């Protein structure tokens, strides 16, 4: 138990350190950039405006709003204080709504889309990869090029292809949105059905890409494991093949779990862009809206939320990994 406590303690500490630095980066990066970010934002909002006094007034307003006239440490304390109260500020582009309000609704869509997609993709991809490594020859010759092709595609590319086939070609699935335009979000059966109907394409485009990537990783892992000494030894001992495959699978799976925690950020980024293709009401579409609308508070809030989501998920994966692989406990005694 002592080993576990040390492992978890370390992981929790690391979680808070990364969280702190993520918040700092979110705060500092826009302020460190060459040039005056407030001037940039003002320039975008006032593009085409010829009234100099009005432009100046907007500029001064934003200086005050962001508090950029204050010294950095003061700004940072205020920023942290606001975050702790859950106050992300006021959205520019969707004015009366607050950033917190917008993010809360789009976050639910993104989590609902990506979490099941990643879990499903991980399981199927690993099974396929292990089978390819075990059978080799025929199955492998087909699976590997397909996986290479798919995992090289950006998620939005596959999204468009699926959209062309199922949405435009066969006309069996809707082209865009998270639910039918005529409905208002509510806990009703019609709404739920509509959500499921709109769920398929975004879900598939993320899952298929993820399956490809995982299958490639699992295939090479399993091949390495199959050549390991313990496998040869077990074969000499006359242990049944099915049992050996079980060992191999367990060992090859471990790096795949820790790899999942590390590649999560890249995955989520790609999937967010895929949302844009379907105009899915998640964080990706929200960021696009924020960028086109020069909505600085919204973008800053969205990036922070994404970072926190990714950090939390990889933290949970790390904890689960600790339970699955008892060796991490032993490693704590070194």
């Amino acid at each position, binding site marked *: 138990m002592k080993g576990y406590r040390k492992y978890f303690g370390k992981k929790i500490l690391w979680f808070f350190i990364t969280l702190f630095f993520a918040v700092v980066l979110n705060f500092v990066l826009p302020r460190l950039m060459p040039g005056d970010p407030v001037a940039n934002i003002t320039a975008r909002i006032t593009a085409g405006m010829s009234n100099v006094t009005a432009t100046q007034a907007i500029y001064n307003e934003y200086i005050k709003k962001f508090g950029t006239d204050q010294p950095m440490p003061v700004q940072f304390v205020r920023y942290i204080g606001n975050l702790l109260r859950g106050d992300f500020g006021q959205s520019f582009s969707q004015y009366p709504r607050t950033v917190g309000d917008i993010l809360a609704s789009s976050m639910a869509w993104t989590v609902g889309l990506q979490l099941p997609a990643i879990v499903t993709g991980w399981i199927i991809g690993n099974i396929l990869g292990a089978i390819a490594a075990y059978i080799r020859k025929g199955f*492998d010759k087909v699976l590997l090029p397909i996986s290479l092709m798919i995992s090289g595609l950006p998620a939005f590319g596959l999204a*468009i292809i699926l959209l062309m086939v199922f949405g435009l070609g066969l006309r069996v699935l809707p*082209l865009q949105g998270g639910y039918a335009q005529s409905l208002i979000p509510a806990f009703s059966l019609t709404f739920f059905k509509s959500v499921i109907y709109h769920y398929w394409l975004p879900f598939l485009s993320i899952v298929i890409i993820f399956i490809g990537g995982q299958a490639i990783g699992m295939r090479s892992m399993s091949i390495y494991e199959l050549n390991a000494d313990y496998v040869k030894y077990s074969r000499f001992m006359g242990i049944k093949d099915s049992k050996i495959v079980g060992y191999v699978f367990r060992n090859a799976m471990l790096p795949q779990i820790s790899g999942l925690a590390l590649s999560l950020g*890249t995955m989520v980024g790609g999937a967010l862009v895929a949302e844009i293709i379907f105009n899915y009401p998640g964080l990706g579409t929200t960021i*696009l809206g924020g960028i086109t609308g020069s909505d600085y508070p919204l*973008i800053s809030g969205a990036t922070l939320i994404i970072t926190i989501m990714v950090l939390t998920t990889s933290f949970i994966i790390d904890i689960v990994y600790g339970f699955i692989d008892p060796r991490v406990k032993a490693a704590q005694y070194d």
Partner: protein
Amino acid sequence: MKNTLRQIAHSPKFMIGFCMILLMVLSVFIYPLIVPGNPLEMIGLGTFFRPGTYVSVYDSVSTDKRYVIKLSDAAEKRLASKLAPEDREVMKTWLLAFGLPEESIDLENTEELLQLWRNTYDPELRFDNMTTAVRKHVQRTDAKLDSLLTDTDIIIASETDGTLTQSGAVGANDYVNVSEIANVRVLPLGTDNFGRDVLKEMISALGTSLLIGLIAGTIATVFGLALGLLAGYVGGIVDDIIMFVTNLFTVIPSFVLLILISFSISQTQRGTVTVAVVIGLTSWVWTTRSVRAQVVSLRNRDHVNLSKLSGHSLPRILVADILPYIASYVIMAFILQISSGILAEAQLSMLGLGPRTTTTPTLGLMMYWAMLYTAHINGAWWAYFPIVVLIACVSFSLNLMNTGLDQVFNPQLRG
């Protein structure tokens, strides 16, 4: 070394991927020679022209100096043959009634007559000495003149049971012998929302995207390699600091950093190279991690210790004694970085944070505009589908090269 190269050349996976990339790079250089011109020139007036052959209706000869050829009043000559003598008489009647002296009206000079007519005729005017029937006749003649002056389609109609039904129309700008007309443009992939030639723009964009991938990949690899070598070989506090930063940036999504940095750089400064540098600077962590892990295992090899005892300098040990052992890995990481750099640019551009939009095309920007103008809902597949296929081909061929190399360097993986 020679043996490895020969093995690589015999790896079908590597060679297929390599040839695909080579083909793409060649087309980037050769295509502009075949179809010269600015890839961002808006040649079509309107959005999303279907793939096909188009004839310019704005024929003009332009060289370094700009000449406008004035055809000797072609329009009037055409009219001269079509304006019947009766119509001329009607025009004269009205002009006389208007009060013009008879000698100023020359019925034979069509150009002058038309000029005079257009300057003086007013359908609202009524004259006491002109009957309504004549006045209406003059109005009809005027309407006829109007229709002669404008280009109209010729309607093709067929007769069934004594009634005519229109079966088609030949436009005034329709040409039969396209090959004999000077200003013809073949658009194999139509135009995009701005009326640009998609194929030409796409090939130019491929060049830019490959360049972005190359710059981003080089920066990420050099940066990652240097940090990985230092952390792995020097160890101690240097290792701790580098690994702390690396671990930090592995869990903080680079996608988020890209958005934050790109949004903070002002629009005017965000050129192709800037975007490539930003992508490179946010994607070095993976190389650092793996290089460090390999260097740690190499650090205590005998030849390294020997080199250390001989008093060789740190850079020399790193370059001469350690680098050759990890070179194969670094090359593979470099290829992967190029591929992910191209994808990162595409994703960034899809969000509207790509390079400045007016000067250079990139694959991501083309996707961005196609999506912004809802090409997929309008059915304009040529504006986005070829680009997706091209992106897929680039990353597929790079991945294929990598797998080929992997099988050469790690014989275990060979099936």
